[in-house]
């Protein structure tokens, strides 16, 4: 048996592979665990040195994340005993809750803008990819190259023109503006990725449907789309990850109504000292939607990544 033949790995090889995977997992997962853990630490534990691995968990960070607080006189505090568990936490520092923070709004903004632009990118991308894959489009290759070329520089390189354009058009700090911007950035990825998937779907399926008495659009909807689900899901995940995590444009173009979570989270630091647990809590919650979305669609994603590699 030659060294290159494909055989069952030996126990030794399995051990080596296992150790490598664990090492890699440590490198990627430890920071994540650190953030999640910090979210449950008290401010003192969060900055203690040496760092604490074992600590008494507290929801202080989460309370601070979702509230704004003010310092109050001792008389006021004595006259109004705390009524809820979260007020009690705040009272340790002689503070009272003044109202909700803006984190909730920013989070909702992220969801609207992230999922909105993902939907739009995938919707337009699917139609464009189908057209490029199936029809004779004049200047097809040039158009495809043009679409790709929008990704040949970092999007932020055009930040200033976009900033001016948005100001003139009244799109600054609007949901629509951010959805359009992220869609514009994502659409080239969506078109190229989906065109690959569409090309893999044999034309005969649609032709069979055409012959069976369906219109081109019915054939697309009932025969092509179910075949393309894998590609659509994979594309959607990539688009969502980009628009969800985007920071630079969000800082530049949003400040109030349409501000997303990424530019908001760092501003928590400034409120009442360096509140690392609140920042960590904000980051932890921010991870969840993409995590849930990806885990939920994982099966499709895995199939999507290996799509072109495996002959059916």
């Amino acid at each position, binding site marked *: 048996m030659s060294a290159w033949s494909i055989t069952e790995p030996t126990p030794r090889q399995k051990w080596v592979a296992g150790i490598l995977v664990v090492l890699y997992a440590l490198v990627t997962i430890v920071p994540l665990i650190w953030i999640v853990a910090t979210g449950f630490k008290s401010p003192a534990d969060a900055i203690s040195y040496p760092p604490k691995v074992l600590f008494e968990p507290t929801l202080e960070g989460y309370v601070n994340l979702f509230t704004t607080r003010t310092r109050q006189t001792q008389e006021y505090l004595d006259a109004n005993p705390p009524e809820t568990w979260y007020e009690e936490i705040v009272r340790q520092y002689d503070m009272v809750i003044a109202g909700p923070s803006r984190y909730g709004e920013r989070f909702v903004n992220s969801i609207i803008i992230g999922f909105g632009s993902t939907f739009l990118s995938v919707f337009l991308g699917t139609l464009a990819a189908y057209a490029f894959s199936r029809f004779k489009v004049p200047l097809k290759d040039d158009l495809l190259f043009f679409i790709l070329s929008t990704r040949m520089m970092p999007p932020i390189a055009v930040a200033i023109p976009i900033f001016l354009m948005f100001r003139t058009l009244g799109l600054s700090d609007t949901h629509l503006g951010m959805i359009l911007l992220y869609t514009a950035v994502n659409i080239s990825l969506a078109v190229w990725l989906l065109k690959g998937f569409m090309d893999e779907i044999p034309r005969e*399926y649609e032709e069979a449907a055409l012959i069976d008495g369906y219109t081109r659009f019915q054939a697309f909807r009932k025969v092509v789309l179910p075949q393309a689900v894998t590609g659509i899901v994979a594309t959607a995940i990539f688009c969502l990850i980009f628009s969800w995590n985007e920071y630079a444009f969000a800082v530049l173009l949003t400040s109030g109504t349409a501000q997303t979570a990424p530019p908001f989270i760092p501003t928590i630091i400034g409120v009442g000292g360096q509140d690392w647990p609140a920042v960590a809590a904000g980051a932890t919650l921010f991870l969840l939607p993409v995590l849930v979305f990806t885990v939920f669609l994982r099966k499709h994603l895995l199939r999507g990544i290996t799509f072109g590699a495996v002959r059916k």
Partner: protein
Amino acid sequence: MAEIVIENLRKEFGDFTAVQASSFRIEDGEFFMLLGPSGCGKTTTLRMIAGLELPTSGEIYIDGEEVANRPASQRDIAFVFQMFALYPHMNVRKNMSYPLVSQGMKRAQVRAKVAEVARILGIEDILDRPVGGLSGGDRQRVALGRAIVREPKAFMMDEPLGALDAEFREHMAEELRALHDRMGATTVYVTHDQLEAMQMGDKIVVMNHGVIEQFGVPQDIYDKPATMFVADFIGSPPMNFLKFHGEIHPGDRAVRMHDVELGVPQARGPFQGDMVFGVRPEHIRLDDAAPYRGRVLATEYLGTTQIVTLDTPGGPVKARTASADAVRVGDNVGLAFDGRTVTLFDSQSGHALVSELNEGVLAHV
């Protein structure tokens, strides 16, 4: 059931002409073969009849109705694809119901119809299975079922047996032909396999480079080829071509080739120049007395017959003789040709010269 008439059908893809002014007629109930090497335009022709490709010019009549520019869905034909194109996200029953559902047929009626067709094809037991796990033969049957269920005017089949393994192909070919005979539906069938075409077809159109080379019943195509291409494409081994310079006059029953007088079917027209003497391997006898000589290069034993390869003044020749004939490599033997079966060709154009053998066939090419 329908008669299909093709008139001056032409298809260009940019600068490339895939089909050049084809005309032929498919009678009602005929099993019609479009035969040719890959890239000859046979599939394009079929797709134009089906409505999957629009012709550049020309007319297509299905039952007297001109349909060349109508969408496929309005032509009432069924198409069986080489890769079957079963909808992968549906089970067998759904696949077969799909064309009926598009017509707005009632659910109970669809069920009954699908059950009936499944019985004809012997696939009742797999109706509720997903199409993914089916064997090639079952996929083929389901694809046929989806085509039959709607009772279309005509069937288009694009190399439907091409995806099956050789062993099973033969069996499926018989099944297909039997099915056709029972239903009597006009069928247009594309293949590059000359044996398949001969075995199954009522009529054959042989195409090459977008041009129809010959159109007729299998016997005529084999015995009376209209061009050297047809003579070479049909038959295994193909027809032998012996090149020579000579002349022939109307009424002649012989031609002089390399100083030997050889019998041919009575000529109808004059010709002088570079000619080709075409003779099928089974029409050559090895006869020591024959004046046309050749040297044996090789023999292939095939059971009842053998293929003898000879070197002659006109070029290499393959003869099919009884395997009992004792032939040794290196022997110098005489070749006797069956003069009634010979076709002479114009070497330049590749067209057959008209003789008493082929005048009936060549008239309608």
